[in-house]
Every structure is written in C-alpha cells, then in structure tokens.
C-alpha cells in the first residue's frame, strides 16, 4: 500500500485514477508504463492505475464504484463492457469527477472518449494487408475476442466489407470467439485448418489471437502458405513474425493511449477546451479529431495506428 495513497482527501493535489480491464497483462502493463510516465512528468497531480484481477466486468465495476466514492478528481477507464459502467460513470460525473474513456466509442456517460484511430480504418487496413499477402485470392476467416467486444466486431466487419472488393476472397466461418486465450485460439485455428484445408488467411482481433493462430500455422508448416494478420503486440509476436507464421500485426501503443487519456483528463479538469485537430503532444495523438460523441461528451480519434511486419516491427519493440 503506497504511502501516497493514504489520506488522499487531505492532499491538495488532484487525484487521477486510471482503471483498466485487467491488471497485469502485457497490454495494460504497457499502459501502466504510460500512466507512470505521465505521473512523473506531471508532479502537480497524483496519478495511478488500477484494475481487476479477473476479466470480469462486475469486478471492474466495483473498483470504479469505490473510486467514485473516494471522489478522485479524474477517472480514466478502459471499460471491460462500456454498458456495464454507464450508471456509475453517470454518478461520477454528477459528483463532478472528470471521466475519460478509451476503446468505448459508444460510451454515453463520459466527458471524452479517445480512440487511437478510426476503427473502420483499422479493420480495413488489416484486411488490406491480409489481401495483399493472400494475393487477393482464397478463403479466409476472422477471430474476435468475444462476440460482445464491440471494437473487435467493428474491425472484422470493416475487414469483411473491404474484402468484398476482391472477387477471389471468400470469408468462411467468420467471427470465431477466442476469449483472448492463446491456447484455445490455437485449438480452434487447428480445427478450422482441418475443416478448410484450402484456407489462406486469418484476420484476428484480440491481443493473444496471433500467438495462438501463429503457433497453429507454424506447427502445420504452413508459413508462407497461410497468411495471418491481426492485432498483436510486437514483443510477444516477435518470434512468430520472424518465422513467417504471422504476416503482419496491427496495434496502437497502450503507453501513449494511457498518457493521452490522462492528458485529456487534465485538460478537462483545468476546464480547457478540446478542439478539433488539437495536438496532445503524445506520439500518435498529434492531430486529434474531435466530434460529438454518443452522449454529452466528445469522441476523439487519434492517428496512432501501427501496422508492422517482419521488416519493421523492431522499431516498436515493447
């Protein structure tokens, strides 16, 4: 228990909390790096990150509830399920807490939701990469973390839309659920490969999917014959990128997303305006578009998309 945390109310410094989907996994550890960097660079505030120990929306809700009760000044949330926390975020805003969300472009009760990029653009970009790898020919399939994760669905839908451009590409058994579990994804990928021996491509969404599918491809000796493009982090994917099992990965750096969320929150706390095209002075968020969101707040979109392959992933290692 950090000493700084005790007696927060008595301190003058504003308290800025970041709540992630699950603590400890590489993605949010990376975000934690960003939050810490932000805290170090901004000594006038206390900033920290917290998150549940299980991938359970109910647990995340409870953490947010308690933070609202504690009356932190700003709350940056990456919702497990945006719908679940609508109620508590509304209460937070009623209490005067600044709320910023990430990966939740349908969140109503938020002052600002920041997306790293336009989701449809991202889905299209991944699919375009897949299409070029497949030579615009053959069967392909898609994976999502779960049918409930909205962004994943947006990506694969945009991908499917994109593939319609190419008459030779057929989508089969779309939207397999991976539950972000590499082992399960591996088994499913093998099964799909058996069912469709002529399958030529995978487009995946959750962070662990490329690892599972990549392993299945590698073990079947199908590198170069079957293409795999999906969301993934450079470090875990490195080996499979090298071996050719993964054709390309797409991602955005959660570190900068973490910093961006907190910067926006700080701006809002200081009652500064968010203007279209503004520069957050964070990599990938130099020219942020600002639109009206689904609720009272704004929807901000950055340009933090990265698509990396064997040739250039080393530039992003984290």
């Amino acid at each position, binding site marked *: 228990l950090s000493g700084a945390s005790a007696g927060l109310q008595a301190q003058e410094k504003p308290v800025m909390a970041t709540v992630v989907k699950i*603590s400890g996994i590489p993605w949010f550890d990376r975000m934690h790096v960003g939050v810490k960097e932000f805290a170090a660079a901004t000594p006038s505030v206390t900033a920290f990150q917290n998150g549940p120990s299980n991938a359970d929306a109910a647990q995340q809700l409870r953490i947010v509830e308690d933070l609202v009760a504690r009356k932190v000044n700003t709350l940056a949330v990456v919702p497990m399920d945006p719908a679940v926390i609508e109620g508590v975020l509304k209460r937070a805003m009623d209490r005067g807490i600044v709320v910023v969300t990430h990966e939740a472009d349908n969140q109503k009760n938020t002052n600002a939701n920041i997306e790293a990029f336009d989701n449809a653009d991202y889905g299209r970009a991944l699919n375009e990469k897949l299409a070029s790898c497949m030579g615009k020919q053959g069967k392909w399939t898609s994976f999502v973390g779960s049918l409930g994760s909205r962004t994943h669905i947006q990506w694969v839908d945009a991908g499917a839309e994109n593939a319609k451009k190419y008459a030779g590409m057929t989508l089969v058994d779309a939207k397999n659920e991976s539950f972000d579990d590499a082992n399960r994804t591996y088994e499913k990928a093998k099964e799909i490969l058996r069912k469709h021996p002529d399958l030529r491509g995978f487009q995946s969404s959750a962070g662990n999917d490329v690892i599972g599918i990549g392993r299945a491809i590698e073990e079947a000796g199908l590198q170069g014959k079957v293409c795999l493009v999906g969301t993934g982090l450079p470090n875990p994917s490195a080996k499979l990128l090298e071996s050719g099992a993964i054709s390309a990965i797409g991602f955005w750096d959660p570190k900068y997303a973490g910093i961006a969320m907190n910067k926006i929150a700080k701006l809002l706390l200081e009652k500064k305006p968010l203007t279209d095209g503004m520069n957050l002075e964070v990599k990938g968020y130099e020219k942020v578009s600002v639109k009206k969101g689904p609720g009272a707040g704004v929807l901000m979109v950055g340009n933090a998309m990265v698509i990396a392959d064997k040739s250039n992933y080393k530039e992003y290692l984290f």
Partner: protein
Amino acid sequence: MKPKTDPQLAFLISINVLILLCAAILSRGAFIDSYNLQSMAAQVPELGLLAIGVMLAMSSGNGGIDLSGTALANLSGVASALLVSAFLSADADPWAFTVAFVAVAMLVGLLGGVLNGLLIAHLGLTPILCTLGTQMLFTGVAVVLSGGVSVRVGSAGPLMEIANGLVCGVPISFVIFCVISLLIGMTLKFSPFGIQLFLMGTNAKAARYSGFALSRILIRTYGMCGVLAGVVAVLIASRNVNVKWDYGQSYLLIAILITVMAGVKTEGGYGRMICIFLSATALQLLSSMFNFLDASNFIRDFAWGMLLLIFLATMRYDLKSLFIRTTSIPTSSVQRPPASTNHS
C-alpha cells in the same frame, strides 16, 4: 430460555467494526463519508443475495450447494430483457416495463431454480453435479439467446430507481436486501417450512419418516434460490442498464466465501441469516478498503484466501478448545456436534 452468545456472531460483529475503524483511520475519515457508505451499501446486495441462495441450498443437507446462481441471474436478466423489450417500450411505458421486467426475471429465476430442485429431488442428482450442469446450461442458453453480446434493458425510470435511488439516504437496493434477508430469516426460523428445511438438513431419513414431503421442500428451497437469482438479475439490470451472460463470473466463489464466513454448516441443517448479512458486509468493507488504499487486486485475492483459511482455523480451534482437548483422533461413531451433555 437463556440467550446464548453465538461466537460466530460476535466474531462477525467485531470484524465489521474492526475493518471500519481501520479503513476510517487509514483514509483519515474519508471512508465513513456518507457517499461511500451509500456506495458500499449499494454494492452489497448482489453478492449478499447470491450468498443467501448458497446458504439455503447448503442447509438442505446432503451436500446441497448452488453453483448456478450467477449463471441463472444472468440468464434471467437476458431472457427478461429480450422478452419484455419485444413487447413493451421502456420509454413509452416505464412502469409497465419495470413491472414486466421484474416479473419475468423472477419467473425465469423461479423456473431455473425449480429445474434444479426437480433434478435433485426427483432424479436424485447430487446437488453439486446438478448445479454444475445447470450452471453451464443456463450460461449457454443466455449466450444463445443473446448471441453473446450484452443486451440493453432500456432505461425505464422506475427500474433504474431500484439500484440507483435512495430512501431516507439509504440505497433502495440495500433496503430490498434487508427486507429479503429479514423475510427469509423469519421464514427459516419461524415457519414450518424453515424448521422442516433445517430438520431435513440434519437428517433426511428421519425427516421422511416424520412425514415431510422432502421433494417439495427441496424444490421450494432451490426455487427460492432461483427467485433470489431473479432479484439479483433485476439489480444488475437496474444498475448497469445492460445484462450479459458472463457478468459476475467471479461471484460464485465470493458467495461461497461469504457463506462459509457466516458459519453456515456445509453438511446442512444450520445457518443464520444475520451472520450471512454481516459476513457480506465485512467482505464489502474489506474490499472497498483495499480500493481506497490503491492496493493491487491480486493482494486482495490473496487476502481473501487467507481470511477464509484463518476463519476455518478459528472455527476449528473454537471447537477444539470447547470440546475435545485430548484426542488427536476425533470420535468417530455417530456424528455428534458439541452440545451440553446434560442428562439425568
């Protein structure tokens, strides 16, 4: 009749007070701010009601347990949301919507609970196996119905009030929890059904020979668990505006933790509602305290495991010091819990 001091109750009261004091001191008073108290009170009911369900199932004896509570709550919520939204609009007719939603959720809960009861009473499935199966079945049906995505309930005013409103500064959901605890507590203690349930939990054969309709008691008990799950579904829907098949996957173990901390006998026949209540609040206080102190949630898991084990240890120690001091091998013949050996 002398009022007996129940060590369990004393322990739970003191642990509640202790945590509250600790948290208040560590947070320099912020913890006992009225908003936080309200917020915690509003968080207790979901878990508390599920724990009552587990307790009911446990008291029926014969290895009774309900592993399907959370799954059934999610199913009730999903089914009710889909069904009611198909016929009524939350915005046009908020009251009708609310009443219909609550009714359908509780009905689905009841049906699920009765299914458990029927399988256990008439087919003779072991409760743990049966509710393991129905847990998957209920979850599965919820997934199939909703296609795996969260289902929007529609924000009917009165429905939203249930989890978010206050009466006299107390969250309505907490009032509901108190009322339900009180009702079930009274039923267990004073109604023929409750007495039969506990007697049956003590000795099912003797209960049958005393003319109890065992199947009916079992079905009623699991039916009650189901209705409680239905109520939980209403609370979830009201608080989150949305219901989803995988909500609260970590609740089951916590509900069991609450029940065990409340001193409910796992072999059946004994349990006190007040203890469940206090056990639920103790866990909530502890968990909120951790969140106030920015403790990692992994530490909290660790602490909960520790707490449960320490708790089991103190129960064992009490038993030992009260009763058997010398034996390393406990008496084996007939199961005889501690009691005053007071015969002529």
